[in-house]
């Protein structure tokens, strides 16, 4: 009897060891670096000129401890919606498994009908959006776009291939700065819960688009003001928010009521001010514990613009009841340490839709 128990114990130990070894040997996908810098005039810079094609480079390796057959590598890219990555990007990759490791092979958009096998019924885009959102960015006008390799690959046990992925895309016409996101995975894993086979990285630098249209939209830093959706016209419902939490010492948050003071500028050059302090302009506190106040308007109606005119921009401020406290762009610039000699310069929102 004792012999039997001893034997069972020994077998248990052996099985446990095999299981642990199996777990250790399972293998991993690594994303070693992401590079968002571009070369302009021989210099490496974290910006691109509007309308140019920028190249973003991902480097990583795979440590494979079991055979994987017919695998497609997957890469996800988080970028501002205005870049229209799904239409404009060309994605290629190199890897050591190829006959010619220096040859750039192509990647394509993953069709919506091809779901990740462990994504719980979500598409790749839904899974990435729910899992990582817009990363460290403060505006949500961004999107994940997901590609996979056109070729499928067999990786044998103990193979450790390196890979490089190139995302080349038009950075659009809008001036902006944003933190870009990168994600790698493969179809055999299909967005499983663990982190061994999928990795995500956000750019260390805030990538900027310069020499384009409009004021710079800053996805990277919190500001006193926020507008949603960023691409809007006068027949949208547009939400303007005052974010008092960025500076808890600001006097306006303590004042109680926050009002929206604004002027619409039309294509005819007319200006339509709204400056009453009433229910129409009172901003609503988002929650009892929040320092964010917002107002959602239908601009054409709110400013009473004539039917044959189009609003091209809105200048606005946040004020208290008697306007003894006004928060303007000048205050925002001062808070972020940017030079602004103009006093009470209004926040500015341009009505654009591209």
């Amino acid at each position, binding site marked *: 009897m004792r012999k039997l128990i001893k034997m069972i114990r020994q077998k248990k130990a052996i099985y446990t060891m095999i299981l642990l070894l199996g777990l250790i040997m399972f293998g991993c996908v690594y994303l070693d670096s992401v590079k968002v810098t571009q070369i302009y005039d021989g210099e490496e810079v974290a910006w691109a000129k509007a309308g140019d094609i920028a190249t973003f480079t991902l480097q990583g390796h795979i440590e494979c401890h079991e055979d994987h057959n017919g695998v497609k590598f997957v890469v996800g890219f988080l970028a501002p919606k205005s870049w229209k990555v799904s239409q404009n990007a060309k994605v290629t990759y190199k890897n050591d498994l190829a006959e010619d490791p220096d040859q750039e092979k192509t990647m394509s958009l993953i069709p919506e009908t091809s779901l990740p096998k462990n994504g719980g019924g979500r598409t790749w885009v839904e899974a990435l959006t729910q899992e990582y959102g817009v990363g460290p960015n403060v505006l949500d006008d961004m999107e994940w776009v997901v590609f996979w390799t056109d070729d499928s690959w067999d990786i044998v046990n103990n193979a450790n291939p390196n890979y490089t992925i190139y995302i080349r895309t038009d950075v659009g016409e809008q001036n902006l700065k944003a933190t870009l996101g990168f994600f790698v995975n493969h179809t055999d894993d299909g967005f499983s819960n663990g982190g061994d086979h999928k990795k995500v990285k956000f750019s260390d630098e805030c990538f900027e688009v310069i020499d384009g249209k409009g004021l710079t939209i800053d996805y990277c830093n919190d500001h006193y003001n926020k507008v949603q959706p960023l691409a809007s016209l006068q027949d949208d*419902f547009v*939400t303007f928010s005052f974010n008092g939490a960025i500076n808890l010492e600001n006097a306006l948050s303590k004042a109680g009521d926050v009002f929206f003071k604004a002027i619409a500028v039309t294509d005819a050059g007319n200006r339509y001010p709204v400056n009453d302090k009433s229910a129409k302009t009172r901003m609503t506190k988002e929650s009892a514990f929040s320092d964010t106040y917002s107002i959602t308007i239908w601009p054409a109606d709110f400013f009473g613009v004539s039917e044959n005119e189009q609003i091209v921009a809105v200048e606005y401020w946040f004020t208290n009841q008697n306007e003894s406290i006004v928060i303007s762009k000048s205050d925002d610039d001062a808070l972020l340490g940017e030079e602004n000699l103009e006093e009470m310069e209004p926040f500015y929102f341009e009505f654009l*839709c591209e």
Partner: protein
Amino acid sequence: MLHKITKLIFILFTLTLLGACDKFSATESDVFEETDKDLSGVWKLEKVTRNGIDITGLMDFTQFSLDLNKDGTYVVENYLPFVVKDDGKWQVDDPLYPFHLIFKTEGSNQDEVSVEIEYMIVNGKRSLSIDLSPGCFSNVYTYVFNRTDHP
């Protein structure tokens, strides 16, 4: 003797089964016929989403109504950005299975405006859902209406 009883039971059982089958033959009352869907009524906004996010509580959407009259005319009351602005005539693409609502503005030379609809039953009430982009094309709003004059 036992063999005969078994045989008799088997025959009786088979007859019972055959009889049972006969009782469940199709009758006229079992034939299901789809009826026309009547979308007429006063429709008020119950929910509005912007790019998938619920914004119903951010503005007063309660005053807007779409009156689809039985005589084929419609009236937009307290206009908010919508697929049509002025009153006119309406119809559905298919009364049995309506997937599109078609508006023709009164006295205008404009073509008809056809919008995709979802005509569903939610909590026992008919509900009408329309996707639209009245402003920038990249912003998609979903207007969910409830019929206020009858269920």
